[in-house]
């Protein structure tokens, strides 16, 4: 049989992998162990979020050990990971949820087991969470639509790029956009469609809209930066002047920050670092008790807008930062530092 030696090699390889994997795990008993469950490490935002957890001051000074779990955009995967954290008796869970409803039953189990669950980045439909640290997506929709309306002088035609229909950020950002639109009867929505957060899809969609509505589109409302960047690319590709359009987006991804610098669009920063690190502080406070002092920079930065209040609030909302030509370079540098060496 030819297969024999081959399968031996395979077994050895697998064993080797297992040994390496075990060697990489440290079993320090005195450290607090916190699981960071993130919706999917395919998004750059999620990578910044995970990097921020790993660079939290409490992790750096050795009091806390953070393990990152990639939810791979699947609520079931994320639930299984929360179950794994429970069997491993983690001291706390920081959860950036895949789905608004999907994790609720598993969160209930964790709460019953006495493990604090602090939600970060997006909301979940569960009464059992310890707290949440995030940015208000309804507010984000309002801010960008208000800015677009201002830049358009309160009138003109717009197209709206929505997130994946039913996604909590899509629902909330659309809601915010609608609230503001109700105030501007002279702004007309020509088209509204999802481009699934994707730049490539936004590009094609904008090309087709430019054809369907020649010389009619004034405003481009992207519910995230990627789709707005795709639209920008379509405008440029068509040989039109970007400055004749009002393009707005949300999130503050590097390319969008650069586009703001070039005066091509407006965007607001969703603070991945603040959301992750802030949530870890709230989780640690729940575990350690009143004596715990928050360590993340985000609490200092927004002392007035988001007071710590003993770390027992049910929700903390991190304000959106408007990206400007002045703060662009600092933001870019900071993101780069966060991701490197993590």
């Amino acid at each position, binding site marked *: 049989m030819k297969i024999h030696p081959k399968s031996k090699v395979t077994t050895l390889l697998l064993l080797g992998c297992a040994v390496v994997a075990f060697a990489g795990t440290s079993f320090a008993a005195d450290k607090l162990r916190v699981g960071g469950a993130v919706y999917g*490490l395919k998004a750059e935002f*999620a990578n910044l979020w995970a990097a921020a957890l790993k660079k939290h001051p409490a992790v750096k000074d050795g009091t806390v050990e953070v393990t990152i779990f990639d939810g791979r955009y699947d609520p079931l995967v994320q639930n299984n990971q929360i179950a794994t954290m429970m069997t491993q008796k983690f001291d706390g869970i920081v959860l950036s949820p895949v789905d608004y409803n999907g994790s609720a039953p598993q969160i209930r189990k964790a709460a019953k087991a006495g493990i604090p669950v602090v939600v970060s980045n997006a909301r979940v439909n569960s009464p059992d969470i310890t707290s949440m640290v995030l940015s208000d997506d309804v507010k984000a929709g309002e801010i960008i639509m208000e800015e677009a309306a201002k830049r358009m002088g309160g009138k003109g035609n717009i197209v709206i790029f929505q997130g994946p229909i039913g996604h909590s950020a899509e629902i909330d950002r659309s809601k915010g956009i609608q609230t503001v639109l109700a105030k501007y009867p002279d702004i007309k929505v020509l088209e509204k469609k999802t481009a699934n957060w994707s*730049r490539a899809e936004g590009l094609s969609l904008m090309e*087709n809209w430019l*054809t*369907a509505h020649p010389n009619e589109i004034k405003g481009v409302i992207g519910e995230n930066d990627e789709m707005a*960047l795709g639209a920008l*690319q379509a405008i440029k590709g068509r040989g039109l002047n970007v400055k004749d359009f009002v393009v707005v987006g949300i999130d503050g991804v590097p390319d969008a920050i650069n586009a703001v610098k070039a005066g091509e669009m407006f965007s607001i920063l969703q603070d991945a670092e603040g959301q992750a690190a802030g949530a870890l502080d709230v989780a640690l406070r729940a575990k350690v008790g009143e004596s715990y002092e928050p360590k993340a920079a985000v609490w200092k930065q927004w002392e007035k807008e988001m007071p710590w209040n003993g770390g027992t609030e049910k929700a903390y909302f991190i304000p959106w930062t408007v990206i400007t030509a002045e703060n662009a370079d600092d933001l870019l540098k900071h993101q780069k530092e966060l991701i490197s060496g*993590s």
Partner: protein
Amino acid sequence: MQSNEPTAKTASKETVSKSRLAWLTQYGIIIAFLLLCVALTFLNKYFLTPENISNILLQTSINGILAMGMTLVILTGGIDLSVGSVLAFSSIVAATFVTGDNPQSPLVALLVGILTGAVLGLINGCIVAYLRIPSFVATLGMLSVARGLTYAYTGGMPVPNLSESFLNLGEGFFLGVPMPVLIFLLIFAILWVVLNHTTYGRSVYAVGGNVKSARTAGIATKPVTASVYVIAGLLAGLGGLILTARTSSALPQAGVSYELDAIAAVVIGGTSLSGGVGSIAGTLLGALIIGTINNGLDLLGVSSAYQQIVKGCIIVVAVLLDYSRHANE
């Protein structure tokens, strides 16, 4: 193309109604495409404008290029599920050469991107041809490995700030034709000649038709099998470069599930998933049909949910036509 001959031969022997059916299945794809275009012309006044036709070609070019490579693989009776991931990895690697203050020539990026794709394709090809792992499994593995490599390479971050001369690959024009379209049509022309007028092309069909008789006929079946995956990988790399140039930044999440659109184009184009039968011209039409539907439904303001439903129905109908053609033979 090749499938033309047996059908025509059979048809001549059969009754008139049979030959009509054969004719319909043979040219159904072209008729479907023309009907689609006529319908959209009536429904939207912008559909049949030069600008919109250029749009459709532009939006079809990346899927079209992937589908060209996929056609060769499917002709040999295989499948390549990894092209979306190979596209992402090649473009990330290539982009790092044309970024920042000191970019290399876009030719370097072009070469690196294509080579990266070809190397991953070669790995696929060797696993399939020499280790005899089914292509579905081998390329399913590569789908995961190449995507993982992409995230590992950049830490999940995109590669932005690419040089202007590189972006020209996606946004530039040559003789009034957008560069991606030109590259797409060039690839089509090359592969059309290769498949229809070279020994290599004939051996690709032969391997997919019947490996044993191909071997008896003196064809080196293993290298031929391996080579189609190299071509598919190489073209995935090229597609990735164009996508990167069009989106002005290499994105690690690019190309997810692109393999499915490529396979759909091949299938709609009448190439049989069991191998040996099909044509590159069919794939060109298949890709154009997908691009035209997406474009047309965008122009009409139809929700993307219906876009997916329409596409799905067309795929199944195309395979039905394919089956009835086989039944004829």
